[in-house]
């Protein structure tokens, strides 16, 4: 299973599922990271974490530890 934290800079992937539950999952979904949406990994913070992604045309930063629950496909 590929998850968002494994994706390199500049790659675009499609969301397969958002795992987990509670406030974190809700927040991820609320921000538009839903099944079928495209995510481009745009940038990585100087210290390697968090990452900056583009989803639904806007920029979002997310910690790698939280990105683990976003299952993605494609982009290789």
């Amino acid at each position: 299973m590929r998850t968002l934290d494994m994706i390199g800079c500049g790659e675009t992937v499609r969301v397969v599922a958002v795992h987990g539950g509670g406030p974190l999952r809700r927040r991820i979904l609320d921000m538009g990271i839903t099944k079928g949406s495209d995510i481009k990994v745009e940038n990585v913070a100087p210290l390697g974490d968090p990452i900056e992604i583009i989803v639904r045309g806007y920029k979002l930063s997310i910690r790698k530890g939280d990105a683990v629950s976003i299952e993605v496909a494609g982009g290789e």
Partner: protein
Amino acid sequence: MSEIALVGNPNSGKTTLFNYLTGSSQKVGNWPGVTVDKKAGRLKGHPNVSVVDLPGIYSLSPYSPEEVIARDYIMGGNLDAVINIVDATNLERNLYLTTQLRDMGVPVVVALNMIDVSRSKGEEIDVKELSKWLGCPVVPISALKREGLDDLVGETIRAIGTEQPVPKVFQPKVEEAISAVSAVLAGSEPDGLLRWSSVKLIEGDEAEREIHADDLAEIDPIVSSLEAAMDEDGETIIIDGRYNHIAAMVAVSVKKPDVEVVTLSDKIDAVVTNRWLALPIFFAVMFVVYYLSITTIGGWGTDWVNEAVFEEWAIPGAEQWLTDMGVNDMLVSLIVDGLITGVGAVLGFLPQMLVMFLLLAILEDSGYMARVAFVMDRIFRRFGLSGKSFIPILITTGCGVPGIMASRTIEDDRDRRITAMTCSFMPCAAKLPVIALIAGAIFNESPWIAPSLYFIGIFAILFSGVVLKKIQGFVGTPAPFIMEMPAYHMPNARTVAISSLDRLFHFVKKAGTIIILACALVWFLSAYNWSMAAVDVADSMLADIGHAVSVIFAPLGWDNWMATVATVTGLIAKENVVSTFGILFGLEEVSEAGDEIWANVAGMFSSGVAGYSFLLFNMLCAPCFAAIGAMRRELGTWKDTALAVGWQCGLAYAAAFVFYHFGTLATGGGLTIGFPFAVAVLALLIWLFARPMPNPEAGADEGVVPS
């Protein structure tokens, strides 16, 4: 009298629009129970319409305090209309909240903001089409350029009291389930909220399930058969449904240019968050913030207020004037030394604070603040702090009062509170004379004393972050760090000015009184004896109290009444520690580092270790009253403020205690009686730090993601 609310995502231009709509009539307060600002005012040109600015939110989920406030307020049923401000350059995510609002039975007017930016990117938005899909008026505006605002006000007034068609955003299967749940609920909810409640129940919303606990037996089968049919959980079905609907709506109503324009914001971001350039740029920006607010403009202003206005003008002037009027000496002293000095303690901070607030507002308004969190997050989050905690900590090395107030920019309640509680561990400028005094008197002006205290300060902050984070219920639950990186834009002068003045005014209002009273009390205790005769501090009530309580500092190695008195007067302002020693040793005036009394001070302490222990305690214990007042402002309640000060004093005591006994052993002073206790305290501190995270209350049943 009608009431409308302004609702929208963070960074959608909400504040700018609110400032325009309400002009000078706005009032800032707090939402009950939380430290989230509540702003309200009268609609320009319509004095019988009040406008409430709800916190910036992305969704009406029940998790963050901001979302709960907005949700409760809209559901409260007193609203006549909602203006939903939507960022035209970021339609899909912004319209998500719109689709939620449309379910709540309140007339909505969509203010399509930043339409000028959207046009300049070559996008064409079909406003009529959008309005048809949403079932409510959509008015294109530019809050910054003040375009379309009259239309917006007109549409809003017209919308009051209307019934808008509710768009069916979900696919038929889901809409059927919503109708089925609504049928069960009919009668138990106001008609307007029927659809909202039904949707929320399908999502499995805890708050809504509690309200309708009696109907769950009928509702749960409807929801589970829908979940089975769609092979998804209810929450996913609803959120996916909204976003799919929005994607379809945007595909029809927005014409994007064939070639995506690379905006200036993208170009700036490519440089500013570049892997190699981000840190140097970050430190350069931080240097400018510090340099302007502490070293130069802000510092000059504060010096000017303290010296020119108070020391040279207000204090002697008032003294002269009152004496000329024939006012009783004691009263003159109370007014001048007690009250006016206290007022000075409040007003003196304002120039520094104003400059800092202006800079913070510019950083926030321009979009850079989100990058600060992005760059620094990795370091700070391990310690229960936010990347944005860097700014309060940095500013505190100049002055703790604006430093604590700078924690305001941290959205997450928990991170903000921990930062406000701990950033004053850093040595501020007023603590430097105390350091210089001890370093000069006892350590032969060793250059290692001051840097050691900065390291201890940082260590104490990070240590406290970890420890406080683990105390359940003390600092609330963490919000997930999933943060928008808003597009950069030129900060708006008016927004920046209003935001800075608001914050300044709030400091004076919330913190001012207590600072003045506390300063007056300590002054009173230090200027009078028990029979109310004016005396030197050495014969005052405070000296007697010092004699009585100094024994509690014996375990720290400095059972000395003068050191105790100096510690107490340090609460008015830390540099007072030096001048108090001066007075206690019989000098009228001492230089800033107190060279004249070095010999006396050295004689007070039995060893260098004891002197450093005194210094350590004074650096870490409760900050000055002004900083405590600022903390009260940020934490919201006296209880939390007392807990914060208690933690600071407790940690200061523990640190000085452990240091003294281990230090005495290490410097050949042998084993002290207290040594076993020092070992125990050290073990306790290590345990507090290293113990595993207690399970958050909600963790077990809500299935928080395992990390």
